[in-house]
Protein backbone atom coordinates (compact mmCIF):
# COMPACT_ATOMS: atom_id res chain seq x y z
CA UNK A 1 0.00 0.00 0.00
CA UNK A 2 2.91 2.33 0.79
CA UNK A 3 4.16 1.81 -2.74
CA UNK A 4 0.91 2.91 -4.24
CA UNK A 5 0.76 5.94 -1.98
CA UNK A 6 4.23 7.07 -3.07
CA UNK A 7 3.47 6.53 -6.74
CA UNK A 8 0.23 8.49 -6.44
CA UNK A 9 1.88 11.33 -4.57
CA UNK A 10 4.60 11.57 -7.17
CA UNK A 11 2.09 11.40 -10.00
CA UNK A 12 -0.08 14.14 -8.53
CA UNK A 13 2.93 16.36 -7.91
CA UNK A 14 4.22 15.80 -11.40
CA UNK A 15 0.83 16.48 -12.97
CA UNK A 16 0.43 19.71 -11.00
CA UNK A 17 3.88 20.76 -12.13
CA UNK A 18 3.19 19.99 -15.73
CA UNK A 19 -0.25 21.56 -15.61
CA UNK A 20 1.27 24.76 -14.24
CA UNK A 21 3.88 24.69 -16.97
CA UNK A 22 1.24 24.20 -19.63
CA UNK A 23 -0.90 26.92 -18.20
CA UNK A 24 1.98 29.35 -18.52
CA UNK A 25 2.81 28.23 -22.02
CA UNK A 26 -0.82 28.32 -23.02
CA UNK A 27 -1.19 31.95 -22.07
CA UNK A 28 1.74 32.93 -24.31
CA UNK A 29 0.42 30.84 -27.16
CA UNK A 30 -2.49 33.27 -27.50
CA UNK A 31 -0.08 35.87 -28.78
CA UNK A 32 2.16 33.73 -30.91
CA UNK A 33 3.07 30.08 -30.91
CA UNK A 34 2.87 27.55 -28.25
CA UNK A 35 6.46 26.67 -27.73
CA UNK A 36 7.48 23.15 -26.95
CA UNK A 37 6.44 21.67 -23.66
CA UNK A 38 8.60 18.85 -22.45
CA UNK A 39 10.96 19.51 -25.34
CA UNK A 40 8.76 17.69 -27.80
CA UNK A 41 5.73 19.93 -27.79
CA UNK A 42 6.23 22.38 -30.62
CA UNK A 43 3.94 24.68 -32.39
CA UNK A 44 1.06 23.23 -30.54
CA UNK A 45 -1.08 26.30 -31.05
CA UNK A 46 -0.98 25.94 -34.78
CA UNK A 47 -1.01 22.20 -34.79
CA UNK A 48 -3.70 21.85 -32.18
CA UNK A 49 -6.54 22.90 -34.37
CA UNK A 50 -5.74 20.22 -36.91
CA UNK A 51 -4.18 17.37 -35.14
CA UNK A 52 -5.16 17.16 -31.52
CA UNK A 53 -5.10 13.35 -31.29
CA UNK A 54 -1.51 13.26 -32.50
CA UNK A 55 -0.45 15.63 -29.79
CA UNK A 56 -2.44 13.75 -27.20
CA UNK A 57 -0.77 10.56 -28.23
CA UNK A 58 2.60 12.23 -28.21
CA UNK A 59 2.03 13.64 -24.78
CA UNK A 60 0.83 10.32 -23.46
CA UNK A 61 3.96 8.67 -24.73
CA UNK A 62 6.18 11.36 -23.34
CA UNK A 63 4.51 11.22 -19.98
CA UNK A 64 4.61 7.42 -19.86
CA UNK A 65 8.27 7.59 -20.48
CA UNK A 66 8.81 10.20 -17.78
CA UNK A 67 6.69 8.40 -15.25
CA UNK A 68 8.32 5.08 -16.06
CA UNK A 69 11.60 6.66 -15.16
CA UNK A 70 10.19 7.84 -11.86
CA UNK A 71 8.76 4.50 -10.75
CA UNK A 72 9.27 0.80 -11.29
CA UNK A 73 5.68 0.11 -11.05
CA UNK A 74 4.07 0.01 -14.40
CA UNK A 75 0.82 -1.28 -13.07
CA UNK A 76 -0.92 1.98 -12.82
CA UNK A 77 1.24 3.64 -15.35
CA UNK A 78 -1.12 3.57 -18.26
CA UNK A 79 -4.07 4.59 -16.11
CA UNK A 80 -2.24 7.57 -14.62
CA UNK A 81 -0.80 8.58 -17.93
CA UNK A 82 -4.20 8.56 -19.53
CA UNK A 83 -5.67 10.64 -16.67
CA UNK A 84 -2.90 13.24 -16.78
CA UNK A 85 -2.89 13.53 -20.52
CA UNK A 86 -6.68 13.97 -20.48
CA UNK A 87 -6.26 16.93 -18.15
CA UNK A 88 -3.56 18.21 -20.47
CA UNK A 89 -5.45 17.89 -23.66
CA UNK A 90 -8.61 19.43 -22.23
CA UNK A 91 -6.67 22.39 -20.94
CA UNK A 92 -4.83 22.69 -24.25
CA UNK A 93 -8.01 22.47 -26.23
CA UNK A 94 -9.54 25.23 -24.16
CA UNK A 95 -6.51 27.47 -24.56
CA UNK A 96 -6.18 26.91 -28.27
CA UNK A 97 -9.79 27.53 -29.01
CA UNK A 98 -9.64 30.65 -26.84
CA UNK A 99 -6.62 31.91 -28.79
CA UNK A 100 -8.24 31.11 -32.07
CA UNK A 101 -11.31 33.02 -31.02
CA UNK A 102 -9.23 35.97 -29.93
CA UNK A 103 -7.31 35.99 -33.18
CA UNK A 104 -10.36 35.75 -35.32
CA UNK A 105 -12.05 38.44 -33.24
CA UNK A 106 -9.16 40.79 -33.76
CA UNK A 107 -9.03 39.99 -37.41
CA UNK A 108 -12.71 40.71 -37.75
CA UNK A 109 -12.27 44.04 -35.98
CA UNK A 110 -9.48 44.96 -38.36
CA UNK A 111 -11.60 44.06 -41.36
CA UNK A 112 -14.53 46.03 -39.99
CA UNK A 113 -12.31 49.04 -39.35
CA UNK A 114 -10.87 48.83 -42.81
CA UNK A 115 -14.21 48.65 -44.51
CA UNK A 116 -15.52 51.47 -42.40
CA UNK A 117 -12.57 53.61 -43.47
CA UNK A 118 -13.23 52.72 -47.06
CA UNK A 119 -16.83 53.69 -46.65
CA UNK A 120 -15.87 57.06 -45.13
CA UNK A 121 -13.38 57.68 -47.91
CA UNK A 122 -16.01 56.86 -50.50
CA UNK A 123 -18.50 59.18 -48.87
CA UNK A 124 -15.91 61.94 -48.74
CA UNK A 125 -15.08 61.42 -52.37
CA UNK A 126 -18.76 61.56 -53.27
CA UNK A 127 -19.21 64.78 -51.30
CA UNK A 128 -16.17 66.35 -52.93
CA UNK A 129 -17.20 65.28 -56.38
CA UNK A 130 -20.74 66.55 -55.84
CA UNK A 131 -19.37 69.87 -54.62
CA UNK A 132 -17.09 70.02 -57.64
CA UNK A 133 -19.96 69.28 -59.98
CA UNK A 134 -22.07 71.91 -58.28
CA UNK A 135 -19.29 74.48 -58.55
CA UNK A 136 -18.84 73.61 -62.22
CA UNK A 137 -22.58 73.90 -62.79
CA UNK A 138 -22.59 77.28 -61.06
CA UNK A 139 -19.65 78.53 -63.12
CA UNK A 140 -21.27 77.20 -66.30
CA UNK A 141 -24.61 78.75 -65.62
CA UNK A 142 -23.71 82.22 -64.31
CA UNK A 143 -24.59 84.96 -66.72
CA UNK A 144 -21.26 86.70 -66.26
CA UNK A 145 -18.32 85.48 -68.27
CA UNK A 146 -15.59 83.87 -66.21
CA UNK A 147 -12.07 83.46 -67.51
CA UNK A 148 -9.16 82.00 -65.59
CA UNK A 149 -5.67 82.52 -66.92
CA UNK A 150 -2.36 81.23 -65.58
CA UNK A 151 0.67 83.31 -64.68
CA UNK A 152 1.71 83.42 -68.35
CA UNK A 153 -1.67 84.79 -69.36
CA UNK A 154 -2.78 81.60 -71.08
CA UNK A 155 -6.38 80.58 -70.72
CA UNK A 156 -6.94 77.79 -68.21
CA UNK A 157 -10.72 77.80 -68.31
CA UNK A 158 -13.63 79.87 -69.43
CA UNK A 159 -17.35 79.37 -69.01
CA UNK A 160 -19.92 79.39 -71.82
CA UNK A 161 -20.93 82.97 -71.00
CA UNK A 162 -17.34 84.12 -71.51
CA UNK A 163 -17.16 82.16 -74.77
CA UNK A 164 -20.28 83.92 -75.96
CA UNK A 165 -19.12 87.37 -74.83
CA UNK A 166 -15.71 87.07 -76.43
CA UNK A 167 -16.90 85.10 -79.45
CA UNK A 168 -14.38 82.31 -78.90
CA UNK A 169 -14.52 78.80 -77.49
CA UNK A 170 -12.57 77.32 -74.63
CA UNK A 171 -11.18 74.69 -77.00
CA UNK A 172 -9.68 77.37 -79.23
CA UNK A 173 -8.30 79.35 -76.35
CA UNK A 174 -7.21 76.71 -73.87
CA UNK A 175 -3.51 77.12 -73.19
CA UNK A 176 -3.28 80.22 -75.37
CA UNK A 177 -3.25 83.90 -74.49
CA UNK A 178 -6.70 85.44 -74.34
CA UNK A 179 -5.89 88.32 -76.64
CA UNK A 180 -4.30 86.06 -79.27
CA UNK A 181 -6.27 86.17 -82.47
CA UNK A 182 -8.41 89.06 -81.31
CA UNK A 183 -8.08 91.60 -84.06
CA UNK A 184 -7.13 95.14 -83.19
CA UNK A 185 -10.37 96.45 -84.54
CA UNK A 186 -12.24 94.07 -82.29
CA UNK A 187 -10.47 95.36 -79.24
CA UNK A 188 -11.59 98.90 -79.73
CA UNK A 189 -10.39 100.28 -76.48
CA UNK A 190 -9.18 99.33 -73.10
CA UNK A 191 -10.10 101.84 -70.48
CA UNK A 192 -8.05 101.66 -67.36
CA UNK A 193 -9.85 102.45 -64.14
CA UNK A 194 -9.24 105.80 -62.52
CA UNK A 195 -7.28 105.72 -59.30
CA UNK A 196 -9.58 105.09 -56.39
CA UNK A 197 -12.16 103.53 -58.64
CA UNK A 198 -12.90 99.88 -58.18
CA UNK A 199 -15.22 99.26 -61.08
CA UNK A 200 -12.63 97.31 -63.02
CA UNK A 201 -11.62 98.06 -66.53
CA UNK A 202 -13.92 98.42 -69.45
CA UNK A 203 -13.19 96.65 -72.68
CA UNK A 204 -14.92 97.68 -75.83
CA UNK A 205 -15.25 94.87 -78.33
CA UNK A 206 -16.48 94.96 -81.87
CA UNK A 207 -18.48 91.79 -81.85
CA UNK A 208 -17.49 89.32 -84.59
CA UNK A 209 -21.09 88.15 -85.13
CA UNK A 210 -22.94 91.40 -85.50
CA UNK A 211 -21.46 94.74 -86.30
CA UNK A 212 -22.64 96.40 -83.14
CA UNK A 213 -20.01 97.19 -80.59
CA UNK A 214 -19.92 95.47 -77.27
CA UNK A 215 -18.72 97.01 -74.07
CA UNK A 216 -17.51 94.56 -71.46
CA UNK A 217 -16.50 95.29 -67.96
CA UNK A 218 -13.75 93.04 -66.64
CA UNK A 219 -13.24 92.79 -62.90
CA UNK A 220 -10.09 90.84 -62.30
CA UNK A 221 -8.46 89.37 -59.24
CA UNK A 222 -5.00 87.89 -58.98
CA UNK A 223 -4.83 84.28 -57.80
CA UNK A 224 -2.05 83.64 -55.32
CA UNK A 225 -0.87 80.29 -54.02
CA UNK A 226 -0.22 79.57 -50.35
CA UNK A 227 3.26 81.07 -50.60
CA UNK A 228 1.91 84.31 -51.97
CA UNK A 229 3.13 83.82 -55.53
CA UNK A 230 0.91 84.88 -58.38
CA UNK A 231 -0.26 81.82 -60.21
CA UNK A 232 -2.90 83.34 -62.40
CA UNK A 233 -5.82 85.65 -62.66
CA UNK A 234 -9.55 85.24 -62.63
CA UNK A 235 -11.67 87.75 -64.53
CA UNK A 236 -15.39 88.23 -64.45
CA UNK A 237 -16.72 89.75 -67.64
CA UNK A 238 -20.07 91.41 -67.78
CA UNK A 239 -21.75 92.86 -70.80
CA UNK A 240 -22.46 96.50 -70.02
CA UNK A 241 -23.41 97.50 -73.56
CA UNK A 242 -27.04 98.04 -72.59
CA UNK A 243 -25.98 99.93 -69.50
CA UNK A 244 -23.73 102.15 -71.61
CA UNK A 245 -26.55 102.83 -74.03
CA UNK A 246 -28.80 103.73 -71.14
CA UNK A 247 -26.12 106.01 -69.72
CA UNK A 248 -25.88 107.80 -73.05
CA UNK A 249 -29.66 108.04 -73.21
CA UNK A 250 -29.74 109.31 -69.66
CA UNK A 251 -27.20 112.02 -70.27
CA UNK A 252 -28.97 113.24 -73.39
CA UNK A 253 -32.19 113.13 -71.41
CA UNK A 254 -30.52 115.16 -68.68
CA UNK A 255 -29.38 117.73 -71.23
CA UNK A 256 -32.88 117.96 -72.72
CA UNK A 257 -34.61 118.12 -69.36
CA UNK A 258 -32.12 120.74 -68.33
CA UNK A 259 -33.17 122.87 -71.27
CA UNK A 260 -36.87 122.16 -70.94
CA UNK A 261 -36.97 122.86 -67.21
CA UNK A 262 -34.88 125.99 -67.25
CA UNK A 263 -36.53 127.64 -70.21
CA UNK A 264 -39.93 128.30 -68.59
CA UNK A 265 -38.25 129.23 -65.31
CA UNK A 266 -36.08 131.77 -67.05
CA UNK A 267 -39.07 133.28 -68.85
CA UNK A 268 -41.03 133.55 -65.59
CA UNK A 269 -38.08 135.02 -63.73
CA UNK A 270 -37.44 137.56 -66.48
CA UNK A 271 -41.10 138.59 -66.63
CA UNK A 272 -41.22 139.16 -62.91
CA UNK A 273 -37.92 141.06 -63.02
CA UNK A 274 -39.24 143.38 -65.70
CA UNK A 275 -42.29 144.20 -63.59
CA UNK A 276 -40.30 144.50 -60.35
CA UNK A 277 -37.77 146.81 -61.98
CA UNK A 278 -40.74 148.95 -63.05
CA UNK A 279 -39.72 148.66 -66.70
CA UNK A 280 -43.39 147.91 -67.38
CA UNK A 281 -44.77 150.74 -65.30
CA UNK A 282 -45.31 151.70 -61.65
CA UNK A 283 -46.16 149.16 -58.95
CA UNK A 284 -47.92 149.36 -55.61
CA UNK A 285 -46.00 148.22 -52.55
CA UNK A 286 -48.21 145.14 -52.09
CA UNK A 287 -47.79 144.13 -55.73
CA UNK A 288 -44.05 144.43 -55.31
CA UNK A 289 -44.13 142.34 -52.14
CA UNK A 290 -46.05 139.47 -53.71
CA UNK A 291 -43.97 139.50 -56.86
CA UNK A 292 -40.86 139.27 -54.69
CA UNK A 293 -42.28 136.15 -53.04
CA UNK A 294 -42.91 134.65 -56.48
CA UNK A 295 -39.39 135.48 -57.62
CA UNK A 296 -37.73 134.12 -54.48
CA UNK A 297 -39.52 130.82 -54.89
CA UNK A 298 -38.64 130.65 -58.56
CA UNK A 299 -34.98 131.05 -57.62
CA UNK A 300 -35.40 128.22 -55.16
CA UNK A 301 -36.93 126.00 -57.81
CA UNK A 302 -34.13 126.95 -60.15
CA UNK A 303 -31.51 126.01 -57.56
CA UNK A 304 -33.19 122.68 -56.99
CA UNK A 305 -33.16 121.91 -60.69
CA UNK A 306 -29.53 122.96 -61.00
CA UNK A 307 -28.57 120.75 -58.05
CA UNK A 308 -30.47 117.80 -59.48
CA UNK A 309 -28.87 118.16 -62.87
CA UNK A 310 -25.47 118.59 -61.27
CA UNK A 311 -25.90 115.42 -59.29
CA UNK A 312 -27.15 113.40 -62.20
CA UNK A 313 -24.22 114.59 -64.27
CA UNK A 314 -21.80 113.78 -61.46
CA UNK A 315 -23.29 110.33 -61.11
CA UNK A 316 -23.13 109.69 -64.82
CA UNK A 317 -19.47 110.73 -64.71
CA UNK A 318 -20.30 113.60 -67.04
CA UNK A 319 -18.57 116.24 -64.98
CA UNK A 320 -15.01 116.83 -65.84
CA UNK A 321 -12.63 117.67 -63.02
CA UNK A 322 -10.04 120.16 -64.17
CA UNK A 323 -7.25 119.69 -61.67
CA UNK A 324 -4.64 122.28 -60.94
CA UNK A 325 -2.35 123.07 -58.01
CA UNK A 326 -4.49 125.02 -55.56
CA UNK A 327 -3.87 126.88 -52.35
CA UNK A 328 -6.57 125.69 -50.00
CA UNK A 329 -6.24 128.94 -48.05
CA UNK A 330 -7.21 131.02 -51.08
CA UNK A 331 -10.12 128.70 -51.82
CA UNK A 332 -11.41 128.94 -48.24
CA UNK A 333 -11.06 132.72 -48.25
CA UNK A 334 -12.94 133.00 -51.56
CA UNK A 335 -15.69 130.77 -50.32
CA UNK A 336 -16.10 132.69 -47.07
CA UNK A 337 -16.15 135.98 -48.96
CA UNK A 338 -18.91 134.75 -51.22
CA UNK A 339 -21.04 134.10 -48.16
CA UNK A 340 -20.17 137.32 -46.31
CA UNK A 341 -23.62 138.86 -46.73
CA UNK A 342 -25.32 135.92 -45.11
CA UNK A 343 -22.72 135.70 -42.33
CA UNK A 344 -23.25 139.39 -41.52
CA UNK A 345 -27.02 139.08 -41.59
CA UNK A 346 -26.84 136.46 -38.85
CA UNK A 347 -23.95 138.19 -36.98
CA UNK A 348 -21.96 134.98 -37.17
CA UNK A 349 -18.24 134.91 -36.50
CA UNK A 350 -16.03 132.87 -38.83
CA UNK A 351 -12.79 131.54 -37.30
CA UNK A 352 -10.19 130.24 -39.72
CA UNK A 353 -7.41 127.97 -38.40
CA UNK A 354 -5.32 127.31 -41.46
CA UNK A 355 -1.93 125.72 -40.78
CA UNK A 356 0.85 127.75 -42.32
CA UNK A 357 2.97 126.22 -45.06
CA UNK A 358 0.33 123.77 -46.23
CA UNK A 359 1.19 122.16 -49.57
CA UNK A 360 -1.06 122.90 -52.50
CA UNK A 361 -3.79 120.43 -53.38
CA UNK A 362 -4.54 118.85 -56.75
CA UNK A 363 -8.11 119.90 -57.39
CA UNK A 364 -10.66 121.75 -59.51
CA UNK A 365 -11.06 125.23 -57.96
CA UNK A 366 -14.67 125.71 -59.09
CA UNK A 367 -15.74 122.36 -57.73
CA UNK A 368 -13.96 122.72 -54.39
CA UNK A 369 -15.52 126.15 -53.91
CA UNK A 370 -18.86 124.45 -54.58
CA UNK A 371 -18.10 121.90 -51.82
CA UNK A 372 -16.97 124.58 -49.37
CA UNK A 373 -19.93 126.84 -50.16
CA UNK A 374 -22.18 123.94 -49.39
CA UNK A 375 -20.48 123.03 -46.11
CA UNK A 376 -20.08 126.63 -44.94
CA UNK A 377 -23.59 127.46 -46.15
CA UNK A 378 -24.94 124.57 -44.08
CA UNK A 379 -22.92 125.74 -41.08
CA UNK A 380 -24.38 129.25 -41.41
CA UNK A 381 -27.88 127.78 -41.74
CA UNK A 382 -27.64 125.79 -38.55
CA UNK A 383 -25.59 128.14 -36.39
CA UNK A 384 -27.77 130.47 -34.32
CA UNK A 385 -27.41 134.25 -34.45
CA UNK A 386 -24.15 135.51 -32.90
CA UNK A 387 -22.68 132.01 -33.13
CA UNK A 388 -19.29 130.99 -34.45
CA UNK A 389 -18.24 128.79 -37.36
CA UNK A 390 -14.77 127.27 -37.25
CA UNK A 391 -12.90 126.30 -40.40
CA UNK A 392 -9.75 124.23 -39.93
CA UNK A 393 -7.20 123.15 -42.51
CA UNK A 394 -4.16 120.98 -41.90
CA UNK A 395 -2.09 118.12 -43.23
CA UNK A 396 -3.20 114.52 -42.73
CA UNK A 397 -0.99 112.22 -40.66
CA UNK A 398 0.60 110.56 -43.69
CA UNK A 399 1.26 113.97 -45.23
CA UNK A 400 -0.41 112.96 -48.49
CA UNK A 401 -3.65 114.82 -48.00
CA UNK A 402 -4.89 118.17 -46.85
CA UNK A 403 -7.78 117.94 -44.44
CA UNK A 404 -10.38 120.69 -44.25
CA UNK A 405 -13.16 120.82 -41.70
CA UNK A 406 -16.11 123.12 -41.07
CA UNK A 407 -17.64 123.14 -37.59
CA UNK A 408 -20.96 124.75 -36.73
CA UNK A 409 -22.75 125.58 -33.48
CA UNK A 410 -26.06 124.08 -34.51
CA UNK A 411 -28.24 121.46 -32.94
CA UNK A 412 -25.97 118.69 -34.07
CA UNK A 413 -27.04 115.49 -35.75
CA UNK A 414 -28.49 112.48 -33.97
CA UNK A 415 -26.38 109.36 -34.08
CA UNK A 416 -28.95 107.44 -36.13
CA UNK A 417 -28.98 110.19 -38.76
CA UNK A 418 -25.20 110.32 -39.25
CA UNK A 419 -24.88 107.47 -41.77
CA UNK A 420 -27.69 108.90 -43.91
CA UNK A 421 -26.50 112.47 -43.96
CA UNK A 422 -24.84 112.17 -47.39
CA UNK A 423 -27.87 110.45 -48.94
CA UNK A 424 -29.90 112.22 -51.56
CA UNK A 425 -32.82 114.31 -50.33
CA UNK A 426 -31.95 113.65 -46.75
CA UNK A 427 -32.28 116.42 -44.23
CA UNK A 428 -31.48 115.40 -40.72
CA UNK A 429 -34.31 115.99 -38.28
CA UNK A 430 -36.78 118.38 -39.84
CA UNK A 431 -36.51 120.60 -36.75
CA UNK A 432 -33.14 121.64 -38.12
CA UNK A 433 -34.95 123.25 -41.00
CA UNK A 434 -36.29 126.63 -40.04
CA UNK A 435 -38.24 128.99 -42.24
CA UNK A 436 -35.17 130.64 -43.76
CA UNK A 437 -33.50 127.34 -44.49
CA UNK A 438 -34.31 126.20 -47.94
CA UNK A 439 -32.13 123.27 -48.73
CA UNK A 440 -32.63 120.95 -51.62
CA UNK A 441 -31.32 118.08 -49.57
CA UNK A 442 -28.80 117.07 -52.19
CA UNK A 443 -26.03 119.57 -51.50
CA UNK A 444 -24.12 117.08 -49.37
CA UNK A 445 -24.56 114.32 -51.94
CA UNK A 446 -23.04 116.63 -54.52
CA UNK A 447 -20.20 117.55 -52.15
CA UNK A 448 -19.53 113.84 -51.55
CA UNK A 449 -19.51 113.04 -55.27
CA UNK A 450 -17.11 115.91 -55.98
CA UNK A 451 -14.70 115.04 -53.14
CA UNK A 452 -14.69 111.38 -54.14
CA UNK A 453 -14.07 112.28 -57.78
CA UNK A 454 -10.92 114.00 -56.55
CA UNK A 455 -9.89 110.84 -54.71
CA UNK A 456 -10.67 112.30 -51.30
CA UNK A 457 -12.96 111.37 -48.44
CA UNK A 458 -15.73 113.26 -46.72
CA UNK A 459 -17.25 112.54 -43.33
CA UNK A 460 -19.16 114.06 -40.46
CA UNK A 461 -18.75 114.00 -36.70
CA UNK A 462 -21.54 115.21 -34.50
CA UNK A 463 -23.43 114.78 -31.29
CA UNK A 464 -26.94 115.91 -30.63
CA UNK A 465 -26.79 119.41 -29.16
CA UNK A 466 -23.08 119.89 -29.75
CA UNK A 467 -22.88 121.07 -33.32
CA UNK A 468 -21.60 119.20 -36.35
CA UNK A 469 -18.17 118.99 -37.93
CA UNK A 470 -17.88 118.14 -41.61
CA UNK A 471 -14.43 117.22 -42.90
CA UNK A 472 -12.97 116.30 -46.25
CA UNK A 473 -9.56 115.49 -47.64
CA UNK A 474 -7.93 116.34 -50.94
CA UNK A 475 -4.75 114.87 -52.40
CA UNK A 476 -1.61 116.99 -52.16
CA UNK A 477 -0.38 118.22 -55.53
Amino acid at each position, binding site marked *: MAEIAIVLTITILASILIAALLLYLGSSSGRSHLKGAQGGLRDAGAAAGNNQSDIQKYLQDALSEQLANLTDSSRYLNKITTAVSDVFSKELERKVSQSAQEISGKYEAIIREKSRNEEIALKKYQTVSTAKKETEAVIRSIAEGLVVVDAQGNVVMMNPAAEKLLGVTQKEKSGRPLTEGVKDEQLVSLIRPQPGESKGREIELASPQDETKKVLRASSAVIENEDGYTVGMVSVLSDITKQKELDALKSSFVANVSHELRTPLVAMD*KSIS*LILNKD*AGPLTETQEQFLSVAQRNLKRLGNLINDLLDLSKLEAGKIEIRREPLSIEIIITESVEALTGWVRAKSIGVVKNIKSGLPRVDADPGRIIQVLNNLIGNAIKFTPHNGVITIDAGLSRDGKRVEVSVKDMGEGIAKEDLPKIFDKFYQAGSERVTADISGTGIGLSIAKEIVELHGGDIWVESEKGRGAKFSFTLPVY
Partner: protein
Amino acid sequence: MEKSGIKVLVVDDEDDYRQLMVFWLQSKGYNALPASSGEAAVELVKEENPDIIFMDLRMPVMDGPKTIARIREFNADVPIIIISAYLDDSKIREATIAPGIAGVFYKGKDFSQSLILLESALRTHKRLKK
Protein backbone atom coordinates in the same frame (compact mmCIF):
# COMPACT_ATOMS: atom_id res chain seq x y z
CA MET B 1 -25.14 157.41 -81.51
CA GLU B 2 -28.64 157.64 -80.11
CA LYS B 3 -29.84 154.39 -78.61
CA SER B 4 -33.04 154.52 -80.62
CA GLY B 5 -30.89 154.51 -83.73
CA ILE B 6 -29.25 151.22 -82.74
CA LYS B 7 -30.89 148.21 -84.31
CA VAL B 8 -30.65 145.05 -82.18
CA LEU B 9 -31.85 141.78 -83.69
CA VAL B 10 -33.03 139.19 -81.16
CA VAL B 11 -33.07 135.66 -82.65
CA ASP B 12 -34.79 133.03 -80.54
CA ASP B 13 -37.41 130.41 -81.39
CA GLU B 14 -38.76 130.68 -77.87
CA ASP B 15 -41.55 133.22 -78.04
CA ASP B 16 -41.66 134.23 -74.38
CA TYR B 17 -37.97 134.88 -73.99
CA ARG B 18 -37.69 136.67 -77.29
CA GLN B 19 -40.61 138.94 -76.48
CA LEU B 20 -39.27 139.70 -73.00
CA MET B 21 -35.85 140.57 -74.31
CA VAL B 22 -37.22 142.73 -77.10
CA PHE B 23 -39.51 144.50 -74.62
CA TRP B 24 -36.66 145.08 -72.22
CA LEU B 25 -34.28 146.39 -74.90
CA GLN B 26 -36.99 148.68 -76.18
CA SER B 27 -37.65 149.90 -72.62
CA LYS B 28 -33.94 150.77 -72.48
CA GLY B 29 -34.32 152.78 -75.66
CA TYR B 30 -32.95 150.39 -78.29
CA ASN B 31 -34.62 149.65 -81.59
CA ALA B 32 -35.05 145.91 -80.98
CA LEU B 33 -36.32 143.56 -83.69
CA PRO B 34 -37.49 139.98 -83.11
CA ALA B 35 -36.73 136.97 -85.29
CA SER B 36 -38.28 133.62 -84.40
CA SER B 37 -36.11 131.38 -86.57
CA GLY B 38 -32.75 131.18 -88.28
CA GLU B 39 -34.38 131.67 -91.66
CA ALA B 40 -36.26 134.79 -90.48
CA ALA B 41 -33.02 136.14 -88.99
CA VAL B 42 -31.15 135.78 -92.28
CA GLU B 43 -33.91 137.70 -94.09
CA LEU B 44 -34.01 140.44 -91.44
CA VAL B 45 -30.22 140.89 -91.51
CA LYS B 46 -30.50 141.41 -95.27
CA GLU B 47 -33.44 143.82 -95.04
CA GLU B 48 -32.70 145.77 -91.84
CA ASN B 49 -28.91 145.56 -91.57
CA PRO B 50 -28.87 145.47 -87.69
CA ASP B 51 -26.00 146.87 -85.62
CA ILE B 52 -25.80 143.86 -83.38
CA ILE B 53 -27.45 140.42 -83.02
CA PHE B 54 -28.45 138.31 -80.02
CA MET B 55 -28.44 134.72 -81.32
CA ASP B 56 -29.92 131.69 -79.61
CA LEU B 57 -28.05 128.41 -80.22
CA ARG B 58 -30.72 125.74 -80.08
CA MET B 59 -33.40 126.25 -82.66
CA PRO B 60 -35.19 123.77 -84.93
CA VAL B 61 -34.22 123.40 -88.62
CA MET B 62 -31.53 126.10 -88.70
CA ASP B 63 -29.73 126.31 -85.39
CA GLY B 64 -27.50 129.15 -84.16
CA PRO B 65 -24.17 128.06 -85.69
CA LYS B 66 -25.85 127.39 -89.07
CA THR B 67 -27.61 130.76 -89.04
CA ILE B 68 -24.36 132.53 -88.14
CA ALA B 69 -22.60 130.80 -91.04
CA ARG B 70 -25.35 131.90 -93.47
CA ILE B 71 -25.21 135.50 -92.22
CA ARG B 72 -21.43 135.57 -92.58
CA GLU B 73 -21.83 134.69 -96.25
CA PHE B 74 -23.05 138.22 -96.97
CA ASN B 75 -22.31 140.19 -93.78
CA ALA B 76 -18.82 139.75 -92.39
CA ASP B 77 -18.77 142.23 -89.57
CA VAL B 78 -22.06 142.51 -87.61
CA PRO B 79 -21.16 141.60 -84.02
CA ILE B 80 -23.07 138.61 -82.67
CA ILE B 81 -23.71 137.78 -79.00
CA ILE B 82 -24.60 134.15 -78.33
CA ILE B 83 -27.50 133.55 -75.97
CA SER B 84 -27.66 130.17 -74.32
CA ALA B 85 -29.90 128.52 -71.79
CA TYR B 86 -26.98 126.86 -70.07
CA LEU B 87 -23.31 127.51 -69.62
CA ASP B 88 -22.11 124.02 -70.39
CA ASP B 89 -23.86 123.73 -73.74
CA SER B 90 -21.52 121.89 -76.11
CA LYS B 91 -22.73 124.13 -78.95
CA ILE B 92 -21.21 127.21 -77.31
CA ARG B 93 -17.69 126.12 -78.15
CA GLU B 94 -18.74 125.23 -81.68
CA ALA B 95 -20.38 128.62 -82.16
CA THR B 96 -17.73 130.82 -80.57
CA ILE B 97 -14.99 129.59 -82.91
CA ALA B 98 -16.69 131.55 -85.70
CA PRO B 99 -15.35 135.09 -86.31
CA GLY B 100 -17.19 138.13 -85.03
CA ILE B 101 -18.61 136.56 -81.88
CA ALA B 102 -18.71 139.32 -79.27
CA GLY B 103 -19.69 137.25 -76.26
CA VAL B 104 -21.98 134.72 -74.66
CA PHE B 105 -25.02 135.71 -72.60
CA TYR B 106 -26.50 133.14 -70.26
CA LYS B 107 -30.29 133.29 -70.32
CA GLY B 108 -30.59 132.86 -66.57
CA LYS B 109 -28.57 136.01 -65.92
CA ASP B 110 -30.08 139.39 -65.35
CA PHE B 111 -30.95 141.33 -68.51
CA SER B 112 -28.85 144.24 -67.31
CA GLN B 113 -25.77 142.08 -67.84
CA SER B 114 -26.63 141.62 -71.49
CA LEU B 115 -26.51 145.39 -71.76
CA ILE B 116 -22.87 145.45 -70.59
CA LEU B 117 -21.99 142.91 -73.29
CA LEU B 118 -23.98 144.80 -75.89
CA GLU B 119 -22.40 148.17 -75.18
CA SER B 120 -18.84 146.84 -75.08
CA ALA B 121 -19.41 144.93 -78.32
CA LEU B 122 -20.71 148.05 -80.03
CA ARG B 123 -17.73 150.11 -78.80
CA THR B 124 -15.24 147.52 -80.01
CA HIS B 125 -17.00 147.30 -83.34
CA LYS B 126 -17.00 151.09 -83.77
CA ARG B 127 -13.26 151.25 -83.01
CA LEU B 128 -12.55 148.50 -85.51
CA LYS B 129 -14.55 150.30 -88.21
CA LYS B 130 -12.60 153.49 -87.73
